[in-house]
């Protein structure tokens, strides 16, 4: 450290000066823009969650289960995702599908988001393209571990995100988070 830096007051004052410079430059830019000068651009704060930045289409967000035309799950409960999942966060129980051509359907399909590492292997492994991670939903906070478990019904109700990456369906709220 230089001798000057050892006097903390000098460093503190230079920091305050830097912050102040940014503040007044931004205030000037926003002021000029408000007065009609379109080329002036100050720093921008995005008012999340009312405003969102566009997400990349490749973003891996909350999973959803793809539906068939009749609304039943496309999933055939083959357990490929459950097997490949490195976090062991998928729980599937299979049952008989009324149509023997389809043969199998999940009786239970739970994802424990609290354990999920968002690797996307489940999407890669799926032979039926029945699970996708394209909902754009990234808000999963919960008061309990139980509340991190997303059931088949919740995952089936989700829609893919819009072209700008914004979620199209409301964020599913597990039972213990409901007001």
């Amino acid at each position, binding site marked *: 450290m230089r001798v000057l830096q050892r006097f903390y007051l000098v460093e503190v004052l230079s920091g305050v000066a830097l912050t102040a410079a940014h503040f007044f430059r931004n205030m000037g830019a926003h002021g000029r823009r408000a007065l009609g000068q379109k080329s002036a651009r100050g720093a921008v704060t995005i008012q999340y969650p009312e405003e969102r930045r566009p997400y990349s289409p490749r973003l891996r967000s909350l999973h959803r289960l793809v539906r068939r035309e009749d609304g039943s799950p496309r999933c*055939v409960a083959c357990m490929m995702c459950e097997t490949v999942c490195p976090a062991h966060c998928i729980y599937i129980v299979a*049952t008989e599908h009324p149509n023997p051509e389809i043969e199998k359907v999940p009786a239970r399909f739970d994802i424990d988001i609290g354990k999920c590492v968002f690797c996307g292997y489940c999407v890669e492994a799926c032979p039926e393209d029945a699970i996708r991670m394209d909902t754009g939903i990234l808000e999963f906070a919960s008061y309990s571990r139980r509340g991190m478990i997303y059931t088949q019904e919740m995952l089936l109700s989700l829609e893919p995100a819009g072209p700008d990456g914004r979620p199209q369906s409301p964020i599913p709220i597990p039972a213990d988070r409901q007001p």
Partner: protein
Amino acid sequence: MPRLTINGKEVEVPAGTNLIEAARRVGVEVPHYCYHPGLSIAGQCRLCMVDIEKTPRPTIACNTQAVDGMVVWTETDRVKETRRSVMEFHLINHPLDCPVCDQAGECWLQIYYMKHGLYDPRMTDEKVHKPKAVPLGPHVILDAERCILCSRCVRFCDEITKTGELGIFHRGDHSEIGLFPGRELANPYSANVVDICPVGALTDRDFRFQVRVWYLDATKSICPGCARGCNIEVHTNRRRPHHAEGRRVARLKPRYNADVNRWWICDAGRYGYGAVDDKTRLRAPSRREGEAVADATWEEAIAAVAGTLGRLRPDELGVIASPRMANEDLFALRRVLERRGIRRVGCRVPPREPGDEDDILIRADKNPNARGAALLGLDGDAAAVLAAARARQVKCLWVFDHDLLASGWPEASVEQALRAVETLIFTGPNANATSERAHWVLPSAAWVEREGTYTNFEGRVQRFRQALEPLGQALPAWDLLGRVLVALGAPAAPPRAERWFGELAAAVPAFAGLSYRSIGDAGQAAATGPA
């Protein structure tokens, strides 16, 4: 004995051996579907083609007997090309629905296709559709589209059970496996067709959609369903407890033993594992006073049982041992009896319904170790013990495994005997009407939760291994009896089943010279002498 050369390796085989078996001896696997060593040769699948020198075309190995001086090549380009073409032919109408197929993971179509297959299918036409998910009987379900028509199941029903329920119907690529009109695949060995089906055409209804096979662990074991002692594998699911409603034992599969069961087991044995994960399992020692039942610790239970055994005169004590107990347990029990000089010991309790029997595998005696109990001298008449209890000569009765109230004896007389004793002790893995009347219940581990040996009706000592941890606080019966023995003042009890067996072999002439190592996987005959 013909000498032949397979892939450059010379081998001498008994006359009449076919080329698949001869190749197996030199460690060469010839892929095949329809050939099964326990069945006649069909030559149906055409996959086992090999090149034989001085033969113009590839020849099927299953139906070609080894001949002196034969030179066989199993991996030439021509053979590989043939295999690939045959596989392509098998798969023309196969639905390739491996993800939903229960056979996936243990399917020979998958295995051979990965090794020898043509990866880009050339089939562009619509596949022939056939019946799917058709129940053939109580245990077997058919998916005719997956079938490659190897006819193993047909030959099994014709040759092994001689019931002939199955046949191949229609012609050409419309051929399909099916039942003869009015028939049902309900013979006592029906589920063996699931094991021998090389593909997913015949699957197990009991196991259907329960667990994917790659989650299962296999443990060598012995079927406890009857005195035959068929060699089996216990398939357990410990990795995904949410499958199959938490049942740990997923299924039993036969294990080859040339001298006992060959490749087969009966359906009663195969589906007889339900009690292991049943609600009736006893999880902790418990004591009953009047109507109140309370869990106890092992220390309390062992001290109480040993106290009772030590307090009473030997002729006031009665024991009904069980032919379902392993040799180690019975020997530990014998040590306890010897220590207290107890003479009132029985083992044989008549079943309510006489057991069925046939000349394939099933034995009328539904106990796995009746012979072992006899060799250990514990097969006295249990009726005499019960009669003594009824006459109030027995103050403490220790019952192992049996539900005396569900036996062939009249319920009222059993009830009277059980009520006459001061202390009734029950040891077994599952609760029953007898255990409900017991003052002390000491839970023992089920057979898949421990090591041990059974002696089958021919006197063959066979070893079963531990596949699972005991449920709750249950202990192997030899452990529990060892603790009682120590509480009665013995210096120490062997800490492992193997050591108990060592003591047994040293003490009982019939078991002399036997050890877990010498028994191995295939079992070893006890010196039963003139029977």
